[in-house]
């Protein structure tokens, strides 16, 4: 049975969502970096399908940039940072709470999906926006529920993947100039976060740090 562009888009979208759910259940940093790389690769694939379907050069360029920067360069940078800064390879607290995180992620997907399909989607006339919407929610949950420096950067990458996916599905892609600069900006955030991680480790702030001056 041949798979058409619509089915391919849906399959890739669901696969992206599954990587988001996997990220919530993983407490080791290495597999998380590989998972976000896979998510970005799937996103690149989805953009390629859309580019072929619409005959859009802009989306094709965006697909190339997504694979090059989000799926290859940024995960490579994160892997180097994890090794260079000797960051804990496993989040201890997250490791103890992995089942709770998984449950929260699934609940969020169910509630968020219902909200989008019943309220938000009809307002926009775009039911296919449900996957980027859920991806954004899962990214926010990952950011809020974890304390490891690199995992939070990964959560930010996931949020940005949601924006790219939304732009591609609902808005036929942002203008390419904007997308390109956003990618550069993303790189800047990752490098800055890495630099801060280095100093955070060097100045002795623990993974779940408490700094008296920052209370109140």
């Amino acid at each position, binding site marked *: 049975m041949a798979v058409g562009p619509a089915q391919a888009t849906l399959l890739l979208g669901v696969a992206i969502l599954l990587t988001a759910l996997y990220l919530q259940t993983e407490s080791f940093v290495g597999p998380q970096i590989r998972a976000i790389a896979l998510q970005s690769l799937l996103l690149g694939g989805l953009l390629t399908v859309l580019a072929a379907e619409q005959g859009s050069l802009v989306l094709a360029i965006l697909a190339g940039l997504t694979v090059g920067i989000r799926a290859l360069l940024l995960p490579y940078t994160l892997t180097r940072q994890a090794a260079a800064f000797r960051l804990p390879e496993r989040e201890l607290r997250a490791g103890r709470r992995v089942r709770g995180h998984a449950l929260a992620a699934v609940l969020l997907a169910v509630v968020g999906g219902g909200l989008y399909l019943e309220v938000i989607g009809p307002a926009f006339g*775009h039911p296919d926006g449900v996957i980027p919407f859920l991806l954004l929610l899962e990214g926010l949950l990952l950011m809020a529920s974890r304390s490891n420096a690199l995992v939070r950067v990964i959560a930010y990458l996931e949020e940005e993947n949601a924006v790219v996916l939304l732009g591609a599905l609902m808005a036929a892609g942002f203008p390419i100039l904007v997308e390109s*600069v956003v990618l550069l900006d993303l790189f800047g955030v990752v490098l800055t976060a890495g630099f801060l991680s280095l100093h955070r480790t060097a100045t002795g702030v623990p993974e779940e740090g408490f700094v008296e001056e*920052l209370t109140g």
Partner: protein
Amino acid sequence: MIVPGETLWLTLIGLPTASALAGAFVRPGLAERIARAASLVTLVAALLLLVGPSRGSAGGILGWDAMSDLFAVLVAALYALSTWDSARYLGSVRASALSPSTYYALLGGFAAAMLATLAVSDLALMWIGLEATTVVSALLVMYDRRPASVEAAWRYVLIASGGLAVGLFALALLYGEAGSLDAFALAAHPPAWTPALALVVALALVGFGTKVGLFPMHAWLPDAHSEAPAPVSALLSGALLPTALYVFLRIYDLVPPTGALGLRELVVGVGALTALVAAFLTFGQRSYKRLFAYSSMENMGIALVGIGLGGIALYGALLLLVAHAFAKSSAFACSGTALQTTGTSRIDSVRGFGRRSPRTGALWLLSGLAVTGTPPFGSFAAELVILTGALAQGAYGVVAALVVTLGVAFAGVNYPLGRMVLSRAESPELPSEATESWLSTIVPGIALGVALAVGLGSIPYLTGALRIAAGGGFP
């Protein structure tokens, strides 16, 4: 002679950028001189905007109007004040993560990113500018490399970037709905108001509101403002928060005056709640810089109320942003001097500061009054105008919330400040003899003078610029 707006805006972005690039390659002394010169010429270019044409565009990327001009003056002025106050501060930092040259490079980059945000017409480009400010200013926040400042910078990057991702999500939705992200084109020909656009504005409120420090997305603000070097705190509070608010204002332009599905009420409510929560949080603070950070949050909340109400209240909001920026610049400059003198930012550890540093002490006290809406400072007039606007619209609940906010914030800020400056007891941290130099009072003195002149309405062109920026249509 009237310089074309395009030239002025390119100068505004170009000079701080050039200063940033130079700072990366030259020795500290030269970097400081270049930064000072660049900041002054940038300020002159911004002031020329007020007397030149107030609307224009260049090649579809740059775009500006009276509102952009006003915010550019604000950013340029704060950039100049912070740059000129920096050398004194940097001299007192023992250990640093960055060299002074890099500090000036980042300061220039920070100003350039804010000015670029104000200079473009595309909302997505504004987002990029705003995100760039996060990257650059986070490195400035951790300048002195203490665990608290590094942790504050870390939280700032994560929370602000995470919030801005929601803002970008809103922009993607807007692009899908309206087919354009040109703020000026959308304002001139707004798309039909739909529930989808209401969601866009609500998401933008969350996304860009994170960068403004609105409740409950404000967690980064007190950390970053209190841990940054004092000149950077001034820039964060007086220039960055208004710049983020400016981007939201551009999106809020889409909301119709009536029948907005409760959007206006939502914006006013979030503003009032932010102001009220921040005012109460000023009580019990242990650090005076953190105290002023919450005061910034309170002022942004009040400004958002004015923006939400629109009309003459919008005029009040813009006036408040201007007055607050200069008053807060003075407050943080004095805080920096206090930190240098006493070596502590703990309120309980500073007593009798005015006896050893009478001029700075007096300026500090007056700054506290200026940021809490005391006459004759500009914030008083601004808050009065916002209250008048709320009364005219029959928003009595908002008026009550603002009155409580103002009273609580006045006590919450000025009581501990009074104890630190006026107390007869002297803390052991103070030097045995007066060590105050005139240099330390120049920047806060100028900033406070401007805050006062704003209140007295004695700054040429300002009232007219504010009136045009707010859209006119009121007495």
